Every structure is written in structure tokens, then in C-alpha cells.
């Protein structure tokens, strides 16, 4: 399932996939795969993404 919340939060900060990837210490393709729903990140990477986007885990990864 696509994760549109990350894409929206990233766009809100005017941040590219490459910039987010660099902040999280992963490749751009990994961020792309998470946004497309092709890859489920570990909790550690979820936390890194949340910190980079100033969001909580609930904001970005909780369905509801």
C-alpha cells in the first residue's frame, strides 16, 4: 500500500527524495520504495524518517 503521508510531509518541507534519503542514511531508491509501498522499513528507519520530517510515528505510519 502506498505511503502518501511521507510524500505529503516531504513535499510540505520542500524536500526531495534524495535529500530525505541523505538525512536518513539510506539510498534514494529506498525512500522511493517506501513511498510506493514496495518496502516495509524497520522501526529504526521509520524513526529516522520521522525525525527528518519532524513528525511522529503515528503521523506517518499509523493507518486510521
Amino acid at each position, binding site marked *: 500500500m502506498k505511503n502518501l503521508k511521507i510524500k505529503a510531509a516531504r513535499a510540505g518541507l520542500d524536500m526531495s527524495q534524495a535529500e530525505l534519503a541523505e538525512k536518513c542514511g539510506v539510498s534514494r531508491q529506498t525512500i522511493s520504495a517506501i513511498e510506493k509501498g514496495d518496502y516495509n*522499513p524497520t522501526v529504526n528507519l521509520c524513526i529516522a524518517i520521522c525525525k527528518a520530517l519532524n513528525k511522529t510515528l503515528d503521523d506517518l505510519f499509523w493507518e486510521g
Partner: protein
Amino acid sequence: MGGSLEHALGFMVGVIFVSAFVVILMLVLTSRDKKIKRTYDERQEAIRGKGFKYAFYTVITLNMLYAIADIACERIPVESSVVAFIVTLCGVGVYAWYCILNDGYFAINEKKKETIIALTAIGVFNLAIGISSAVREGFFEDGVLTYDCMNLVCGIFLLATILVLLIKDFMDKRED
């Protein structure tokens, strides 16, 4: 079999020494400079693990097929060293191509361009040696394919890898 025992021993010792030298050099360089050490993210590590698995199954399957062919056929017109090398190359190919197509081949801190240039240079070099060897001596001795063909095989394998890299690059650009 092509070549004498001394030639075979010399070849083996050469391969072992060069391999050991490269491994030691890489270990020394990566321990001194962390920038040289390749780092992969968690998704890439998972992809590389899957790549290893598929490569392992490929090598096992091809070895089994060779064993069956060896039992079933009276004479296989290929030297066993060539078969061993080609089976290994197939394993490496499956691993490398799977990783390339799933973004697990290049580390986060790796420069793609340098690797592609190095692979192309080695590929073309091997291809040139292979073609000149084919023209001068040919690859068959008493109707058996000898390991003299390995340069040509390596060259083709490396250039095929470059082709996969270029296809992946094209796919990525189209996706962007």
C-alpha cells in the same frame, strides 16, 4: 587437457597470490579510511541477501546438471575447469544482475561512474585477449573446449553486466 602440470600449478599459485593480495589491500584500505568502506542500507542488505540465495541455488543446480551430464554422457567436450569457471560466473551473474535490477549493487557512498568505467575497461581488455587468442590458437584441443576461452567468456559476462547497468539506468530515468 591443455597445458602441463607445471603450467596448471603456476596458474593456481598466481590466482591465489593475486586474490590474497587484493583482499589484504582492500582490508587495509577500508580499515584506515571509513569513506572507502561500502555501506548499504537495510533494504539493500536484504536484496543482497536474496541475491546470494538465488546465486547459491543457481550454482547448486548447474553443478547437479553437470554431474548428471557427466554420468550420462560418455565424453563431455568441455574441460572441467571451464565448466567450474562458467558455473561460478553464472552464480556471480545471477547475484550481480539481481542486485543491479533491485538497487542493491551500488553502496550509498559508491561512485557509479568509476565502477562502470572500471568494469568496461576490464571487459573490453578481456574481450580483446579472448578474440586474439581465438584467432591465433582457437579454443579447441582434440575436440575439447579448453580454458583459453575464459577471457572471451569473462569479457562477454562483464559487457553483459554493463548492459544490465545501462538498462537499469534507463529504467530509473524513465521512472523519475
